[in-house]
């Protein structure tokens, strides 16, 4: 089981309470598709991903970004058992979506950048460390059911 300090718990709750899930989700996913273009392999049906402008403005990307953030919310609300909370999602990503789990880290890094841009200097090194620890647990849990 992951041990969370009081600071980490309150920091994660605080970050996510202030996030607009639509905006952050779409920005993070779009950024991931631009910065790591091979991730586009999972979104063949999303239409125009031809260049950065197209990706950033693509409504299907935006909608899916929101889905991802709401998925993250489950972990925010269940920090003491993220592994169990994500068991089904992990199976889905492995068996149905066939996503290489290395991609989870890429998206997590993009979300970190998006949160950093939004929070500015409030995103201190300690806040960053807490968010990255949380996202690392999420990434690990999502990869747990792969075999």
């Amino acid at each position, binding site marked *: 089981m992951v041990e969370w300090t009081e600071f980490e718990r309150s920091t994660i709750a605080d970050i996510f309470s202030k996030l607009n899930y639509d905006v952050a989700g779409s920005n993070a996913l*779009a*950024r991931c598709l*631009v*910065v790591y273009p091979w991730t586009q392999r999972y979104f063949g049906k999303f239409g125009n991903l031809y260049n*950065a402008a197209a*990706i*950033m403005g693509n409504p299907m990307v935006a909608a899916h970004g929101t889905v991802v953030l709401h998925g993250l919310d489950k972990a925010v609300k269940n920090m003491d058992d993220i592994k169990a909370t994500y068991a089904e999602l992990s199976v889905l990503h492995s068996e149905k979506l066939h996503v290489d789990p290395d991609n989870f880290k890429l998206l997590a*890094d993009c979300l*970190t*950048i*998006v949160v*950093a*841009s*939004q*929070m*500015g*200097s409030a*995103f*201190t*090194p*300690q806040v*960053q*460390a807490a968010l*990255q620890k949380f996202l690392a647990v999420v990434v690990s849990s999502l990869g747990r059911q792969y075999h």
Partner: protein
Amino acid sequence: MSLTAKDKAVVKGFWSKVSGKSDDIGHEALARMFAAYPQTKTYFPKWSDYSLGSADVKKHGKTVMGAINDAVGKMDDLIGGLSALSDVHATRLRVDPSNFKILSHNILVALAVNFPGDFTAEVHVAVDKFLAALSAALADKYR
């Protein structure tokens, strides 16, 4: 994943905005790295303070970013341009190259925090590629 002409132009354009603040960026990137990736502190065992504001962190941030600023002007031949630094890292410092990726990530975070409007996805991908190419050049002499 080599640097295209467009990548180089984007990096140079963005860097003209960054270079005035580059000491701060270096200082902040290092402080972030030590906080989020504590294993990186093992390369600086004699320091006592790894946080923002530490004199050691500020000084080293300036050194590192000075070299990176320099590398922006050497993008056409990073391996040649960074040859001496690669020797130092390979023979004397022996920093595991996985740490270059870690520092690069923290530089990106520092840039996002300080230049939220300018650090667009397009700038992000170009700078990420540049830092990756720089890291490869730095590791060139390792074996």
